[in-house]
């Protein structure tokens, strides 16, 4: 049961990392702000340069 819970937790953490949810949480914590439309827009601006320069593999 413990193993299953650990696997599920890791899987969810992986998905949050892949889908940038963790990056957004880190952004909020780094800037000490709470989630809002404006905060997410600022996060996207910060991400835009990095994400748009990242090639998608073939």
């Amino acid at each position, binding site marked *: 049961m413990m193993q299953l819970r650990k696997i599920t937790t890791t899987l969810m*953490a992986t998905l949050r*990392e892949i*889908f*940038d949810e963790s990056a957004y949480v880190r952004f909020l914590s780094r800037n000490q702000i709470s989630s809002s439309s404006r905060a997410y827009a600022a996060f*996207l601006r910060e991400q*835009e340069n990095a*994400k748009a320069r990242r090639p*998608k*593999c*073939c």
Partner: protein
Amino acid sequence: MARKFVLDATKKTAMKKFIQTLTWFGVAVLGALALGTIALHRGEQINAMWLVVAAFCAYALGYRFYSRFISAKVLALDARRATPAERLEDGRDFVPTNKWVLFGHHFAAIAGPGPLVGPVLAAQFGYLPGTLWILIGAVFGGCVQDFVILLFSVRRDGKSLTEMAREEIGIVGGFVAYAAVISIIVILLGAGALIVVNALKASPWGVFTIAMTIPIAVFMGFYLRHLRPGKVLEVSFLGFIFVMLAIWGGQWVSQTPAVAPWFTLTAPTLAVIIIIYGFAASALPVWLLLAPRDYLSTFVKLGTIGLLALGIVALHPTLQMPPLTRFVDGSGPIFAGKIFPFAFITIACGAISGFHSLISSGTTPKLIRRELETRIVGYGAMMCESMVAILATIAACVLSPGTYFAINSPAGIVGQSPEAATATISGWGFPVTAAGMHALAQAVGEQTLFNRTGGAPAFAVGMAHIFSSSLGGPAVMAIWYHFAIMFEALFILTVLDAGTRVGRFMVQDALSHVWKPLGRTGWYPSILATSALIVAAWGSFLWQGVKDPLGGINSLWPLFGICNQLLATVALCVATTIIVKMGKAKYSPVTLAPLVWLVAVTFTASWHKVFDPNPRIGFLAHARQLAASAAPSHEISRLIFNDRLDAAVAGALVCMVALILLESISLWVSVISGRMQVRVREAPFVATRFATEEQG
């Protein structure tokens, strides 16, 4: 008492070691048995599970023994050394990340459409050449490349491949790496877009479904920005439901005579639409289209790959394709050329892909928590990618060979009408009937499946065949087929979005050296001009493929394969140079052996593609044939120009890679002979705090 305890402990250790040895011996025997079955069975069909078992055993042995040897002897991974994620942690680019989380992240980044398309095309030789190359190439080439480049980037504060090439080899190395990257992006986008065009032409169901993903992505963008900021998983799930509804709606569209014609498009029309779309995606804000589409594509990609793996293991279908076909002689209808070198450039991503070195020296090295974890992330994630290629091989080979060739062969080879095509293919010894193909097309909701070159439709039919054997039966085969088409097209269009934008940034970076304002990523005149430049570059390759009577894939996919493997050559040159500079020249064959192989493959393939006298292989021979056989016209002149352009691109790339190779060899000789002072440009050693935390 104490002596008895020590003796018991020694016995337990010896027993544990014996069991481990026995287990690995068992894995080796099972792997050998599976490989023997795959390689030696002639004249009777084999079960797909043999491929799966052989792959699992090869990866397990490769990871346990070969990657361990590389970790210990060649790279000397240091558990005490802090990674840039720890030293430069900023919560943004440098973040120490759990190894399994990073494994998933890295796999999601390297897994693209390549390992699905290449193996399907290479199945024209039979299942054996592709399978062996995928397994051997991955264990000794692709996994090694991804692993060593990742580690070397980690030890250089997450530097990119082009930066490492410039610093470790020289200015030529840096320039060639840059040129190879931009060429591969342009040709990949042209070939990818052509695959989408061939999958969607005359398919109202497919066109409707894919068209709907644009408003779905825009909805997701607004949802994320204004309704539920940051809830990406939630909106991706919603987006997935909408896409499933779009697939269901596509069936209604295709069956409604008043609506179907709007979505029934020819290849040239689709090409124009995709070119306009690529330009818009490059110029629009990232949050509006690119980012949500990327999330949606990743969501569908991970789910579908998992589903396909489960489907194959649960249903363990029989392979209909023989191990070797008559086309090993180079006369294949899908692409011309013999197994060597063409099988090895057709399958790149599942065996070894230069593109991966960009990911291994991109985001991942900035997230690695411990140096030891580069092994599971670099070597391990590539094993999973290779497994995806094995699944694609299975999906193609469960089809009857006649059906496979009818779908994948261009009209220019097998004939325009169904009767002519089936007669030609049956004449090759692969029986197929026009009525059977018509029934199959009806079953998957298409008007025809003939001449659907590019690999995507054949993969989709194979996948639908596997799924419909258990989930829903033949009644839902059409849904599964269009699900697979949607999945591949979405995948490729996401690569197109991101690739166009990345290419645009690279051009802007380069042009900024000429005139500074051109490098400003927020200045619209520059954005529009550079987007147009990149779109025109891949758009011309797409247009060339659409107008090519041989279906385009025959020339574009090998060109893409050559580019990709040349980039791998650059990556392996960088890796070998660093190993030599580390004073470990005796271990350099670890990267030198795949490098020598790739040089042999890519240089031979390029030679054939440029100079081969067979017009189906050599670009120049084809141009000569066109010039001699047809009355001059605008169309013929353009085809001749395209052939010469393809020849020039292949030739230029080979010359550039030859330069980096010569520069590297000269460096190795200087270092080994002691004529040169060695300077390895690693970041200085800093002890990690994680080691003491773990001990505490």
